[in-house]
Structure formats: C-alpha cells, structure tokens
C-alpha cells in the first residue's frame, strides 16, 4: 500500500497539450477516481502513474519514493486495461501467473498464489481455459486477478467496465469495490461514467480538456460544484442564466426572465462566483429538488406547461416549459396520476436548492 503524489504534473504531446498542472495527493488505501469526458486527460494522467508516459514537467511519487522517470516494469503497479489486454496465446492460469514468473517466484508459490486469487475473483476451475473461451465478464475478472496477484502498491483501473453490458457492469462495480475494501489497496479508477464514479469513490477528480476542475468527495462534487461544467457533468441539472437584482442578508434575488424572479441563499454559491448586483450568474437546479406546488403563487414558484412526461417506474420526470426556458423535474412515484403534455403545472424551487455555479 502506498500513497500517490502528483506534484504539478504537466504533459504535452509535441505542441498539443495533454494534461496541465495536476497536483494531487492520494492517500494510502483510498479509492480515487479521475472523471471526465473522453479526451479530458484522465487516461493520460493514469498512464503517467503507470509509467507509460513520462511527465513533461512535475514529479510523481509513491509514498516517499520518486518514480517520475522509473520504467513501468519497476513500479509495482497493477493495471486493468479498458480492453483487458489479456495475452491471447496463454491460458487463464498463465495470464495470471505472468507477473509472478517475471518476479522469478518458485513454481509452487506461483501455483498457490494464482489459485488463491482465482478463488477471490470467483474463477476457480477456469485455469486451463483459453482466453477466447471466456465471456466478457470472466475476461474482466482475469484482468483484475492478473493485476492483483502481484500484490501491487497501487491498483490502476482504466475504464474497466466500459466493455460490459449494463447489468454486468453493476455487478462488477460491487465486485471491484468489495475487493478494494477487502485488500485495502490504493486504487485509482478512470471513468467517464459519473454514476460509477459517484458510487465507488472516496474522492473524485473531475477533469475537462486537460485541466483539473474540482477534487472532492462525491457529496461535495454533487452539491457544491465549482463551475458550470462540473454541475452539468455530474448528475442532471437545470442551468439557467440570471442577473442578480439584490442581496439582502443571506438572500440573493435574481431575475431569470422578466416574469421569473427567484430567491437563493448566499451560502449556496461556488467560490468561483462573484455575487453582486448586476452580475450575470448561472443557476444550477437539480431536478429532484424541484417540488410540485399546491398554489400558483408564492416565492420561487414558477408556472408552466408540461412539455414531456416520462414514467420510469420509480419516478416521474417532467420537462416543463417555463417561458423561454425548460425546467426538468423529477418526482418519486407515489401513485398519483401522471400529468399529460400540455397540462398546466406549478413548480416550487426551494431556496436552498438554487446553486450559483458561476
């Protein structure tokens, strides 16, 4: 087990920039996720930790050991690749044993360790299978076992679930989390799927076009996103442009359209946002925070017509046209009738659910 530190790491590919100024400290035993859309630099950062790229600037250390320029085979990291990268000419057993053979371990010990790890990932009895005789989920577990059997200091996972179907993805998610907790291993996980990131991670680093946007716990990232990008990338949200019209004590009054004015709280603002009268701000309103209002008037109540109604079973989603804007809302299904498109609806946006995202 080891902590990982990236000290102002930059990576450029020729003239194209890859990653800019990543500065993080990952605690020993932490489950840390790099999250972002494709091309955001998350895999590049992971590959620098694995040693497949060397940073253009900055240092990387594992614990107190500087590994910045150490070749990948000297780092003792276990990596699971997106397409698993299993050796097609070897059996399951040989694949898992590869890293131990490289380490010149005794045959008997290898056998014992491989069998133990195969039990752990529930592959016992599959040792002699060829790789192409396995299902996608099984291949995934071989890749995981191969990475874990060498008892790495750090486990690196590069979108390991993206090649699995939805159901299997969820199962494997629990499986990976279970193994990580059981072994207490420092884990760095790369994904573009925010649901995966939210459900598994201790902390998340959100990246966009090579730049770190925010680092924080899932709760922080969801409830206090630092900017519009993070707000809209993590979960669903309504992003409305508005102008600040007044600030009284903790209350912030904003005008969205001539017809819609809302009141928010000074507490609910990203540190990057400047709240002053006349400033343009972006509001982030989570759909699940919106309530149906009994009356048509009152503070933070907006009226509109249902444009789209979606019944998903567990909940009902509405897209409501409010003047020129659209407001998405989500209600837990409590058995009441679903409104039809065209029907009028009044919605209440609680004061504390308006977030000034900047």
């Amino acid at each position, binding site marked *: 087990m080891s902590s990982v530190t990236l000290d102002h790491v930059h990576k450029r590919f020729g003239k194209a920039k890859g990653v800019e100024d990543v500065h993080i400290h990952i605690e020993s035993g932490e489950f840390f996720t790099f999250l972002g859309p494709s091309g955001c630099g998350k895999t590049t950062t992971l590959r620098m930790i*694995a*040693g*497949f790229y060397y940073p253009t600037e900055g240092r990387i250390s594992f614990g107190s050991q500087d590994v910045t320029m150490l*070749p*990948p*085979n*000297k*780092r*003792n*990291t*276990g*990596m699971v*690749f*997106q*397409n*698993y*990268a*299993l*050796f*097609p*000419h070897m059996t399951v057993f040989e694949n898992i044993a*590869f*890293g131990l053979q*490289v*380490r010149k371990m005794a045959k008997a010990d290898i056998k014992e360790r491989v069998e133990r790890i195969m039990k752990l990932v529930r592959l016992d009895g599959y040792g002699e299978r*060829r*790789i*192409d005789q396995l299902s996608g989920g099984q*291949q995934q577990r071989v890749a995981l076992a*191969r*990475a874990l059997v*060498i008892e790495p200091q750090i486990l*690196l996972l590069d979108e390991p679930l993206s090649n699995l179907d939805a159901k299997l993805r969820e199962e494997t998610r629990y499986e990976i989390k279970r193994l990580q907790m059981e072994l207490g291993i420092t884990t760095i996980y790369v994904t573009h799927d925010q649901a995966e990131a939210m459900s598994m991670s201790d902390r998340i680093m959100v990246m966009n076009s090579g730049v770190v946007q925010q680092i924080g716990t899932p709760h922080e990232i969801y409830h206090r996103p630092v900017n519009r990008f993070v707000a809209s990338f993590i979960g669903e949200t309504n992003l409305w442009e508005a102008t600040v019209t007044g600030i009284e004590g903790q209350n912030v009054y904003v005008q969205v359209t001539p017809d819609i004015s809302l009141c928010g709280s000074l507490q609910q603002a990203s540190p990057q946002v400047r709240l002053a009268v006349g400033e343009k701000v972006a509001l982030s309103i989570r759909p699940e925070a919106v309530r149906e209002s009994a009356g048509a008037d009152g503070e933070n109540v907006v009226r509109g017509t249902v444009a789209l109604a979606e019944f998903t079973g567990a909940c009902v989603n509405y897209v409501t046209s409010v003047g020129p804007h659209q407001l998405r809302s989500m209600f837990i299904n409590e058995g009441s009738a679903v409104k039809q498109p065209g029907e009028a609806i009044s919605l209440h946006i609680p004061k504390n659910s308006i977030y000034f995202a900047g």
Partner: protein
Amino acid sequence: MRAELQPGSAPARRMSFTSSPAFVYVLVSPLFLILLAYVIYPLWETFVASVHIDGETTWKNYVRFFSLEHTANLEALWTSIYISVLSVISCGIVGVTMAFLLERYEFPGRKILSVLALVPMALPPLIGVLSFTFLYGESGIFPRAFKELFGLAQVPFSLKGIWGVVVVHTFTMYTYFFMTASAAIKGLDPSLEEAAASLGAGRFTVWRRVILPMLTPALVASSLLVFMISMASYTAPLIFGIDRTMTMQIYLSRTNGDLDMAAAQSTILSIVSVAFLLLMRWYQGARNYQNQSKGVSVHRTEIKSKTGRYISIVLAFIGIVILMLPILVLVLISFSVDGTWTVQILPPKYTVDHYLDLFTDKKTWRPIMNSLELSAIATIGIVLFGVAAAYAMVRLRFRGKTLLDVLIMLPWALPGTVVAVNLIAAFSEPTVFSFNQVLIGTFWIIPLAYFVRHLPLVFRSTSATLMQMDPSVEEAARNLGATWWYSFRRVVFPMAFGGILAGTLLAFVQCIGEFVASILIFTPRTTPLSVAIFQKMYSFEFGTACAYGVLQIVVIIIVLFVSRKLTGDKAGTAV
C-alpha cells in the same frame, strides 16, 4: 552475416536504457544502416558508374539513351511500357471477371476452380515461361498437334514475340487482380447494395454507382502493381527473344561489356520503378474503403437454367485445364529421356532417372543444395531485419518513419536486373559495407541479392500481425514487471509468430525460385537451381530441367499451403 547488426539483444541487458528516448534510435539506426549499405549505396554507385566514365563526369550515356539517332534504347523503353499496358489490360479483364464469377455465382466446379485460380502463384517466373513454350511455343505440343491433325505444312499458330510475353504475363500476373478484386468483392457490405436497392436503384445503377466505385481502389492498386512487375519482367522477354525491353537492354549492354551504358539504363529503370512505388503509396493512402459492418454474409447467385449450367460446366472445365496444364506438362516432360524429344508432339521415351538423379547424382544435387543454402542464409537476414523493422514501424515513434517505410519498399519496386546491376556496381571493389571484401564472384553476393530483393516480405507479414495486436497487451506485460526484452520474447513474438513464419516461408520460396538477379551474378560454384534449369534447357536436357522445376513447384505448394494455414486460422486476437 548481418546477424551482428540485429538490434534488440544488445540493449536488453540494461533495462533502464530501454526506456530512455534514445533507445528508439539505437533500435532503428541499424535498420537505416542496412538499407543505406545494401540498397541506397548500390543505387548510388550505379548512378556514379553511369556518369563517371574514364575519369570524367559526363552525361553522354543519358544523351545517347534519349537521342533520336540511335533509337534502340527509346524503342526498348517504349516496348516495355507497351507490353506493361497490354499486360495490365488483359490481367485486369481476366482477373476481375474470374473474381466476379467465383465470388458471386454458384456453379459446378466453382470450389475447385477457386483453389486452382491461385496456381500461377506457385510457378516461379522461369518455370511459368518454360511451360508455356512447351505447350504453345513454336515447337510446343498444341501447335504441333494441330499441324499433325490437319496435315498442315506449318504450325497454324504459336506463342511468340510480344503477344507471347503478354499471354505469359496474363497467366502469371492476373492473380494480383483476382486476389484484390476477390477480397474487395468479399468485403463489399451486402447492406450497401440492399440500401441502394431499397432507395430505388436498379441492378445496373447499383453496379455503376455502388459496386464499381467501391472496387476502384483495389483495381487501381493492382493495375499499378502489374504495370510495375511487367516493367521489371525479364524472363518472358528473354525466352521469347524480345531484345528491345529495358531489362533485356541492361542484360545485353552488360554482356557486350558496355558497363556504363548498362548503369545508365538501370538508373532510368530505377527512376521509373520508384516513381511507380511512390504513386502507389500515395494512391493507397488517398483512397481506402474499409468495410463498415462486421458479419458479412456471402450471397452467391446459383445458376439455375439448364443451358446456363452446361455452359458453366464447360467453361469451368476449360478453366481448370488451362490452369493445370503448365504443371502437368512439366511433370510429363520431367519423365522424358533427355535429348529424345525433337519433332514429335509428345516426348517419345520416358524414365524416372531424373528424379533418382536429383537425390543421388552429386552433380545434379549440387544446384538444389546451393539454392537451399543460399536461400536459408538470405532468409535468416530477411527475418531478423523484417521483424525488427516491423516492430519499429508499428510500435515506436521516431523521426524518419515515412522514410524508413519507403526505403523498405524500395527494393521490392526495383527490378531484379537492377538489383543485380546495383550490387555489381557497389561490391566489385572492397567497401566498408562489405567489410573490405570484394563480394562479386564470391558465395556471399547471391544471398545478399536475395536479401535485398525479398526484404519487404517478412516486414509486411509481421507488421500486418502487429497492427492487429493491441498495444495495451504489451503494456500489460510491462506493467506486470516484464522488461522490454522479456515482454518481446514472451508476449510480442509468440503473438506475431504466425505472421512472422508465414512471411519467412514466403521469402524462402521466393529465394528458391529467384532467377532474374541470379543469372547476372552466379558463379559456377554457386549455381542456383533456377539458373541450372535455364542451363539445362539450353543444352536440351528438358527432362532434368523439368524435374528441377517440379521440385521447385512441390516445395512452393507445400510452403504456400502451410503459410495459408498459419495466417488463416491462427489463435490471433482474442479481444
């Protein structure tokens, strides 16, 4: 001999070194050096020989080449182009028609015909030409049979002159069109045609607007290839006595002792060939239609009408006979007693002695042994170079990558005659690249020529397999603690093994069949098989010559079969 230049083993011991940026150049510089020494330097020396005459620099050979007073050279250039254009047209017609019939229609004999369609590939150039003269030449079996049959004074027809060359070219080279067209037709996504049809296109429109445009890249690529090979063709003009082609002019200038003119002719032919190589590369880069959808179903139209079936059976039968005859005639003549076949339709006396001699008579065995030995040495060099070059091209990033790619393909574009002339120009004096030895007249010059001529084969097959292999597989090995050398040995090499072996076998048989360069540089002690065949032919020992030829064909067929198996159903990418 080139083994010590092979990269990979030297830096392996120092692992930290393999990850430094300079390591790439340590790996690729020997590759550049080899190409420089054995391809570029000989080309340059030939050019120097063509302009540096009796101590002064002069362009007089080039002036003479293009002068309108002595038109022999221009005529030769014109004839070469003329033959090449005719060859492209007739190969194209035959190859594409066959591809369509075999890929799109179901008729009796289709399967056997589609296997036999590749037979011409198993014929080394010299053997192909010889069998055609035996069959259709002036004293060939068919013309004579017709003469006897109808009691004519003269043979009614015979294969000779330029048309002889074109017919032989068609037979031996239509396979390039056939294979690329077949692959393109097979790769045509049926859903494209279905989409066109559903949008209201008729059968003709589908052909004109969808199928033909999709095939164009394949057809243009094969046209350029056939043109290039026809320009380089030497054996067919030699046997049919067409002196006025570029390759024959080079050969004649050399035998007449006009060495600097031969050098000038070589240089001009090189320029034409290289221009075509670059044209081909550019074209292939510019146009490439990949098949979009995955599972492509074959749908063949079955010929149902009764007359249609009869016609197709007859045509298939004729096709099979034409394809098989060259090999059958060689087998037949290989059993004939040397010197007995003079004016008869078929050889009158038969014996199995030639085959016994092959393995028992020391003098007859000698050329076989020579060829095996020369080819084995050349193949080792080709494999070491090809694997290292393929790995560098596919996996490494370095400056000069495009240059390396062009340089590797260069020897493949150069006609065999030119390769031989270049090597003679470069290594008839001691040089650094030959370790201060004169190579001409020694054993080593022939493997060197084979090496240069067939150097791209292993490179191509290996880089094709490496390209299919996911780079992350190698990274996984590195991540698990394997050094560069360990992961190359245990992961990259085993996974690419099928491709490497296929290329190796192909290179080996190409070396065994090599004639064009050998004829210019062999020595009596190192006479290879194909030159021996040529010599036996000229001393009218047809039986022995054909027995040699049959042996070559058998070896080639076995090797082609094995390599097809290797590349066809290998345990490749499981991911």
